[in-house]
């Protein structure tokens, strides 16, 4: 039983990071209509900024994280301002492809500078374990859960209480009406990308902290947030969180139990399991748990 609890906590920790990446994706999708594949690149960007600030400049970890978050938000806003702003009104296909192009560049630049090796982030958690009533949990997992919950709460408060959050919700609902009320679409777009950048950087730091380590493979982990988005519904922030947690738990449980009970499914089955889950979901609930169904003729 305690093994199951340990696995579930590990799964929730991983899942909360999928949830954050998915949340960043949904915020951009809802406010700008862009299917942003570069999100994984921003995750990588944040983690490598943190690594560079911590190891090259020797800053304290907390300060390095803060600066990495700001730096990634800046990169995201620059991407929006320099590239995405020019693509407004262009075919959806072109917009998707341009985010793939950005992903390729964001993936390769850190690799060109720091190589493909697994690096230690320089975080304070290391291999530390915490014991709660006989259940042994990695310290980094607890911190990840805490950071995840804090970010989700902050995002919630931002959208529910703040003036800018209200402007963004209004703009997502009806852009023209929002513009008529004095909401600047440019500000909304920039904010959406900045939020995506902040969330991505935090997810990147947490995903490469502790025993996990940092390598360009990180952007592949970010791709597994896509099943979370499909599970939750592409345009639902709640869905992103629930979908992310579900995918994380399911992945960790399969990783542990398939090897024991169903080895015929093959090595690394847990890495494709999210996509199988996604496919199954598309068959029964194509618009996800919380997504809104497209309305239209036939």
């Amino acid at each position: 039983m305690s093994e199951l609890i340990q696995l579930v906590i590990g799964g929730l920790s991983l899942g909360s990071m999928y949830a954050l990446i998915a949340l960043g994706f949904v915020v951009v999708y809802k406010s700008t209509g862009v299917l942003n594949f570069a999100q994984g690149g921003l995750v990588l960007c944040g983690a490598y900024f943190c690594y560079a600030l911590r190891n090259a400049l020797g800053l304290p970890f907390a300060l390095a994280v803060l600066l990495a978050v700001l730096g990634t938000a800046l990169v995201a806003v620059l991407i929006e301002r320099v590239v995405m702003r020019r693509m407004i009104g262009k075919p959806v296909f072109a917009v998707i492809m341009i985010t793939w192009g950005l992903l390729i560049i964001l993936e390769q630049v850190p690799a060109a500078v720091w190589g493909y090796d697994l690096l230690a982030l320089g975080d304070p958690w290391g291999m530390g374990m915490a014991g709660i009533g006989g259940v042994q949990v990695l310290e980094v997992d607890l911190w990840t859960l805490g950071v995840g919950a804090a970010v989700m709460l902050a995002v919630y408060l931002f959208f529910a209480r703040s003036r800018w959050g209200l402007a963004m919700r209004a703009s997502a609902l009806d852009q023209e009406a929002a513009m008529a009320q004095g909401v600047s679409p440019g500000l909304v777009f920039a904010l959406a990308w900045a939020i995506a950048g902040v969330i991505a950087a935090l997810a990147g730091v947490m995903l490469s902290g502790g025993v996990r380590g940092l390598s360009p493979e990180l952007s592949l982990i970010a791709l597994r947030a896509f099943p979370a988005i499909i599970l939750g519904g592409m345009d639902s922030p709640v869905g992103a969180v629930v979908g992310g947690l579900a995918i994380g738990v399911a992945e960790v449980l399969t990783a542990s139990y398939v090897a024991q009970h169903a080895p015929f499914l093959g090595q690394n089955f847990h890495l494709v399991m999210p996509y199988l889950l996604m496919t199954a979901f598309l068959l029964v609930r194509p618009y996800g748990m919380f997504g809104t169904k497209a309305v239209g003729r036939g």
Partner: protein
Amino acid sequence: MHVPMNLSATSVEAPQVVAASVSRPLARPPASIGWGLLALALGAIFVLPFVASDFWLSILNYAGIAAVGAIGLNLLTGNTGQVSLGQPFFMGVGCYAAAFAGQDLGLPLPVWLAAAMLMGALVGGLVGPFALRLRGQYLVIVTLGLVLIGLHLWQNLPWLTGGANGRSVLIAARLGPIDFSALSVFGTTLARNQGWFILIWLCALGAGICVLNILNSRSGRALMAIRDREMTASVIGISVSRTKILAFVVSSMLAAAGGALYGGYVRYAAPTEWDLLLGVQYLAMIVVGGTGSVLGSVLGALFVTLMPQVVKLASPYLPFVSFTPGDGGIVSLFALNQILFGLFIIAFLMFAPRGLAGLVPRRRGRPPTPKP
């Protein structure tokens, strides 16, 4: 935790963006290939093998294989507006179908090629209805999953794919008395690259003519109507899902043909061949070449295949490229290629959205008369 951000209750479509207008058609109306261009293509196919060096022929062979898959993808993405990363998966299907038919069962060229295309179309027809039932851009995510599921599958079907070690693909390229692996012309036997060049580029030409004919038909106009405005298309009586599935099946079929040719030409296939990066490369080909244009698919395939070679030739003169760790360069050849690749995608989309084909001067004359 309740997060009341999900306000939009009526539409899942992307929020209307400022200045969003009806998307303008991406490409010129398709023309049939025309006798002049056909003669030119045939001329190139039968002259180039005797002019180009063995090295460049092998590069052009890879480009030709890529062109077959890119022509298929362009029909789906450029003409129908459905973005797919799934080409590598279907290339895998085609390659293993050809290896099974041609090597394990020892069947000849027409049969293994047909088997590959049939399997590609069949699997595409099975996946398509699920992948395409949603509005909006779900297909790109579904096909991303498909490629990753495929990779897992290829690793775990050792009887068919050889598992992680890959498998040999020794299939005969013989058509009646003609053996493309050792063509004999006026008593001299040609090198393997020369013969395969003719075979591969004849296949690419066939794929191009086939897709041009589809584009000039009722179905072709239906595809483009769906791309330009799905709801309008459905209102004027086009069966949207059936037409999309048709495009998906043709695209998968051509990808499978490309996969079969790839296996046969390389004589070996590792499961890691069919990865996500390849899917992105195919999309890049049609972006660079020109979306919705058959000629563009070919130009894009040539560009994406030739670019790394050109970069490699130029790299000794670029001081920042590193060949071995610690020689003063800051970027490896692979990383440089990838970064250029990303930059080209972005640059073409921003500054030349019609791609290379858009730079080719438009042919004068009457637009093709629509057939009933």
